[in-house]
């Protein structure tokens, strides 16, 4: 049976996993849904009470019923590289592809419905609380007065996008940023704003969970780090990521989080404070992992390949009553 990988061609991080699958002799088909009707073709028929479907790409033909797992990595929007793209064609191609794949009975990393839900940061924060993970005091609001009052209770705040998305017209990045004392919160009325108590951190933690396996890495905050630089993704640093042990209570909470979120993969970000507490910041359901593996040598790609290669029994989920296998 075949592993299907949905990702763009330039995704060299996916290559790390393909290399392991190839070494194990596991058949792989890698497609970018953006190439539908161009380099990628599909067909499925529902006849006499049965379904037979196929995908074709790069001279490979795979039966949809013959898929053991589907890895949704960095897929393009369906049919956006078609000869005559259009929003209508993208919707048609999306429904055809993902509709057929939803019925495949394959294991997903991660199922699209679980992935969509898991991207909501407010939902993440609540789930983390319910799972027993420490969550910094957070406010999401469009009320300037609520923001002012929150800043009086928690004078040392950061602001970050609610969605994690970055504006594209023109392309800009919105890093987690410190809010200066006396800041005017009037503009909170013009868009939902996420304010969070800043954690005085001594390290950043990236915990990559692959099925039941957890691989944590730690990046020490240098003593001379500019206190205004709170976002590790944008802060220049010579400190490498290093392997870290996962405290048992955190491990249990993360397992519960993954089970509740119906995720087979999650990249958790924590801030480690001076007491050693790991404060939950977010869980990226398709977070990057190559940069951690490159620094630490942790076998993340191999773990993903092993998860994808596993036949494993299927477990039905509750997400919209669909056929999700997450175990």
């Amino acid at each position, binding site marked *: 049976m075949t592993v299907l990988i949905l990702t763009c061609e330039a995704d060299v991080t996916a*290559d790390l996993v393909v290399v392991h699958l190839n070494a194990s002799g596991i058949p792989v088909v890698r497609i970018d849904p953006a190439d539908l009707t161009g380099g990628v073709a599909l067909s499925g028929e529902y006849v006499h009470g049965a379904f037979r479907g196929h995908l074709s790409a790069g001279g490979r033909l795979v039966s949809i019923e013959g898929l053991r797992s589907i890895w949704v990595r*960095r897929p393009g929007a369906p049919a956006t590289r078609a000869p005559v793209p259009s929003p209508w064609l993208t919707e048609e191609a999306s429904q055809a592809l993902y509709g057929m794949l939803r019925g495949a009975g394959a294991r997903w990393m991660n199922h699209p419905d679980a992935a969509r839900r898991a991207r909501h940061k407010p939902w993440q924060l609540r789930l983390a609380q319910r799972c027993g993970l420490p969550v910094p005091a957070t406010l999401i609001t469009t009320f300037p007065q609520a923001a002012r009052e929150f800043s009086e209770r928690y004078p040392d705040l950061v602001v970050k996008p609610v969605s*994690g998305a970055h504006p594209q017209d023109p392309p800009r990045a919105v890093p987690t940023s410190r809010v200066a004392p006396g800041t005017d919160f009037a503009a*909170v009325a013009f*868009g939902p704003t996420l304010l969070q108590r800043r954690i005085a951190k001594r390290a950043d933690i990236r915990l990559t969970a692959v099925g039941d396996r957890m691989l944590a890495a730690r990046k020490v905050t240098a003593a001379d780090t500019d206190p205004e630089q709170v976002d590790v993704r944008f802060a220049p640093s010579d400190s490498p990521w290093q392997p870290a042990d996962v405290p048992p209570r955190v491990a249990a909470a993360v397992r519960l989080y993954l089970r509740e979120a119906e995720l087979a993969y999650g*990249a958790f970000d924590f801030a480690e404070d001076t007491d050693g507490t790991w404060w939950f910041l977010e869980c990226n*359901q398709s977070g*990057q992992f190559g*940069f951690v593996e490159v620094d630490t040598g942790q076998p993340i790609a191999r773990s993903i390949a092993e998860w994808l290669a596993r036949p494993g029994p299927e477990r039905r989920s509750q997400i919209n009553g669909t056929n999700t296998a997450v175990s």
Partner: protein
Amino acid sequence: MQPFALNYARPAAELQATIPYIYDSGLQLNVLMDGQIAARDLALLRELGTTTSTAGSKTHFDD
């Protein structure tokens, strides 16, 4: 009328280096000019930063 969070926006960083590999649809892998598999060169991946947590930010929510 600009949302509060956009007061903290900065120009998006572009990758400085030219990507020295190209996708091989036969292998389903990116390969370097000499035919070697790019993913086997971890030092190169570190240098390019193409696997870092901001690499997917332009088109994807998940870092």
